[in-house]
């Protein structure tokens, strides 16, 4: 068996060192090694976006990243979104807009939305839909999600 590697990374602002086999994906490392189970596995082949995390500020599907590739990277997961026990704007908007039902896709949608609003604070509905194309939800029909993202953007702008 390939030797385990020591990987040094930053997760949600904290320096983290973990041991993993080369064949373990970042998703497996987050969930099974680091016990950060907020990131969900959906399809495990990069189609559904459930496992979306931010890697150096950019959303990636963590099922298609090897844990060893996280060496030196900054990772942000759903666990790092709320601050001091308070939900952030995006989480609050999803909650208030009932933009979730079963919830499996929600952490991925929220991470993808965080990345969108960091880059484009005032997206159009079309831009939101295009940006979220890599995240699948089988419950909501997307409308409430899109409205929640637009509401979060508006609230975030008002707070600045």
């Amino acid at each position: 068996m390939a030797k385990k590697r020591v990987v040094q990374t930053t997760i949600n602002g904290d320096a983290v060192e973990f041991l993993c086999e080369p064949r373990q994906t970042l998703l497996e490392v987050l969930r099974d090694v680091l016990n950060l189970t907020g990131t969900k596995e959906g399809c495990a082949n990069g189609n559904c976006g459930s496992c979306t995390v931010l890697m150096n500020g950019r959303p990636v599907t963590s099922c298609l990243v090897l844990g060893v590739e996280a060496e030196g990277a900054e990772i942000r997961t759903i666990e790092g979104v709320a601050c001091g026990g308070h939900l952030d704007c995006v989480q609050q908007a999803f909650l208030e807009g009932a933009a979730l039902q079963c919830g499996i896709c929600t952490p991925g949608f929220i991470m993808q939305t965080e990345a969108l609003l960091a880059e484009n604070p005032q997206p159009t509905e079309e831009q939101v839909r295009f940006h979220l194309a890599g995240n699948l939800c089988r419950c909501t029909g997307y409308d409430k999600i899109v409205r929640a993202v637009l509401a979060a953007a508006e609230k975030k702008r008002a707070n600045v």
Partner: protein
Amino acid sequence: MRDFDYEAPLQLAAAVDLLARHSGAARPLAGGTDLIDHVRTGRLSPDLIVDIKKIAELNVLAADATGLRLGAAVTCTQVAAHPAIIQNYAALADSAQIIGGVQIQNRASIGGNLCNSGPAADSTPSVIALGGRCVIARPKGMRELPAEEFCTGPGKNVLAPGELLVEIRFPAPPAHSGSHYRRFIPRNEMDIAVVGVAAAITLDSQKQKVTAARIALGAVAPKPLLATEAAAELVGRPLTDDVIAQAAAAARKIATPITDMRGTAEYRLHLVGVLVERVVRAAAARARGEAIDYKPGH
């Protein structure tokens, strides 16, 4: 996932050495969006994965008066946002922003798309139409070949064990040039091309007659095709409806599509004609300096 070893060399020579020593049992890793899935499903079973993203030569992204150098590991996101690519190699930017979703584009590279050699690869027709040349490192030196000669069949290409695609080089387009890539899919995004077409067109100084043209077709043959005969119909002529229709007819003649869940062969042949006409018009509009009416997914 099956067990494998992992190396992330900093030097190109070290990567080539690793790939050569494992002769076929090692696979290079760029964005991993195909590789990791293929290992998981057992379609590929490497003993060693060589992460090539830390090698400077594979991250080159530079455009100047002599042309564009695109390192094999440069992501689609980088390509789609690069001002010189948007301006002078627009077909590449068109492709880069419709490959998968944002998450995939943040990892996947144009070089990886080429090396996976899927017949429906969205960026390969653009690479071919823009006259891309593949620069390949091998244990003893380098070799270069035109992009249209790179793929040899579904999932197959000219790379021998121990060879690594380093970069794709594009000539600088002459004045009054434009390019475009468009595909047909039944959805708005996140789908595989039923047919994809790229074209690069150069017009004369009056912006009337075509002085040079390259057209490439995806998803209608075992590999992406350079449609030499279709492009030849355009050269020396003004872009009238008749001339464009002749180019579309010539493109249909070289297409040998299959029937599958995405469409019948007959349907694909029809689409080749429709897309060649639309893509040639759009590339020519860009050559005239006009904005084109195109939104990805529409």
